[in-house]
């Protein structure tokens, strides 16, 4: 089969409120960074002809949100498609464009400023239907609260184990120059932080985040024009679970298991425990880290609590960037994870570089309580 490479990645420093710079300006920084790294241009011959962008209408407060940034991403005068799903799916879409022969080089920029919304939870409330869910105030936080209780009971997760997840994330984030929240914490800070949505505590939740991120993808034939060490996309899969919370088993992630199995199958991975060296997963709330690791097949079903105590996250180099827990914008968090995995596979992750990374798994989720999951496998 033909191969598709990620040639390079660029990340904007994530902050709680980048009010002083337009997201268009943030995207221009990303473009210039990637052009400097790879030398890519927009001419009609050998340049980029197709853009896959990712942004969110509600956070940008305009529909067809890509229209607000097309000039800054090179989207005028050439092909431009917007991924309105979680951003990691933009990689799947760009990969398909290259594998189908539609094009051989794709630029993928993404942005989201959560701070533009008065409340990001008000935004996610609008993801629900007006009859059965929206009027009850369902949003991505309180639906996660319901899932947290269901999963914590099943996997016997303790307050101390959740605190360990958060403390570890902050420690790694302090080594990542792009990370948002790097204040160091003790276990007790987390365990006794105020309840936000029981059993989710304030310090179990990811902070409000603004950011932008970009990737350059190319066919195997073209990849070496842009980099000496391309990173290969070897697996991709996604899966959507039922909409109504009551239709799902909230304590077990069917959708993630299916997405992972599809990605592993494409990558020829029979035993992820043996093959995977590094994981970037989207843990918006602390309970999600062990839960998604179960879904990815790296932790036994229902054993998430024990897995934390046995340093399972360290064994698989989980979220050495700090991950979503230390702050990434919703809808593009998965792309930040992909950018970090690319740095790790290239050996360019600086102070948080892991040794001998050959195979990385990137995960993302959106929809209340992990309705939808995406899994990407990258190898060098």
């Amino acid at each position: 089969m033909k191969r598709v490479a990620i040639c390079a990645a660029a990340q904007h420093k994530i902050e709680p409120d980048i009010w002083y710079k337009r997201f268009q300006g943030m995207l221009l920084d990303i473009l210039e960074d990637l052009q400097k790294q790879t030398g890519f241009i927009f001419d009609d011959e050998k340049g980029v002809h197709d853009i896959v962008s990712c942004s969110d209408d509600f956070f940008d407060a305009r529909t067809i949100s890509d229209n607000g940034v097309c000039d800054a991403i090179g989207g005028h005068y050439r092909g431009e498609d917007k991924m309105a799903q979680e951003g990691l799916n933009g990689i799947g879409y760009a990969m398909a464009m290259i594998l189908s022969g539609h094009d051989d080089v794709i630029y993928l920029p993404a942005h989201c400023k959560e701070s533009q919304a008065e409340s990001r939870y008000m935004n996610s409330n609008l993801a629900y239907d007006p009859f059965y869910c929206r009027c009850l105030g369902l949003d991505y936080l309180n639906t996660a609260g319901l899932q947290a209780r269901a999963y914590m009971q099943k996997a016997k997760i303790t307050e101390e184990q959740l605190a360990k997840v958060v403390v570890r994330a902050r420690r790694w984030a302090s080594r990542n120059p792009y990370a948002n929240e790097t204040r160091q914490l003790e276990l007790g800070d987390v365990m006794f932080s105020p309840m936000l949505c029981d059993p989710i505590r304030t310090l179990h939740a990811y902070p409000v985040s603004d950011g932008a991120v970009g990737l350059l993808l190319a066919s195997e034939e073209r990849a070496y024009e842009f980099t000496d060490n391309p990173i290969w996309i070897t697996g991709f899969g996604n899966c959507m679970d039922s909409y109504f919370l009551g239709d799902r088993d909230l304590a077990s992630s069917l959708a993630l298991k299916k997405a992972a199995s599809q990605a592993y199958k494409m990558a020829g991975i029979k035993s992820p425990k043996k093959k995977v060296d590094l994981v970037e997963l989207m843990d918006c709330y602390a309970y999600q880290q062990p839960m998604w690791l179960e879904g990815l097949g790296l932790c036994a079903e229902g054993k998430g609590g024990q897995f934390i105590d046995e340093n399972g996250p360290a064994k698989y180099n989980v979220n050495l960037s700090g991950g979503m827990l230390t702050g990434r914008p919703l809808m593009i968090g998965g792309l930040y994870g992909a950018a970090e995995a690319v740095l790790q596979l290239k050996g360019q992750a600086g102070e948080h570089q892991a040794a001998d990374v050959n195979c990385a798994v990137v995960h993302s989720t959106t929809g209340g309580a992990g309705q939808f999951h995406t899994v990407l496998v990258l190898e060098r």
Partner: protein
Amino acid sequence: MAVLRREDTSDCFVMPGKMVLPVQYFAGRAGSQFIISLRDERKILGVKCPQCKKVYVPPREYCEKDFTKLDENWVEVGNQGVVANFTVVHYNDKHLPLKAPYILALIKLDGADTPIAHIVSGIDPEKVSIGLRVEAVFADKTTNTILDIDHFAPIVD
């Protein structure tokens, strides 16, 4: 990558805004029947899939598993049920129906297979537990939504 420099922010104007969008949205035929029954008869309806036998609440027109048409198979589920799961909302926000703290629960009504989300009131949030039996308390005024059930309250024996 160049580290972001703090930029000059003098004379920077930030525009506040509000998205206001009058819309209409069809409840669907199954949804309409459900809402009408709640409003006029104070009965909670589900639909039973003749293929997989699952009783869905809220009702829908087709089974998402086998695409069997469901909306002729109405079943009345109980106005009572058990708390299958819950969270206590401790934050306040404009989209939330109540001031914090309040209980948001998944309630499995008697005869239904799929719990529905709703508010549980009439009990201290510290005392709610999975398995608590509750019953629907209907709203005085209709909103033509699931809030025609105002909340669920613990059953007092």
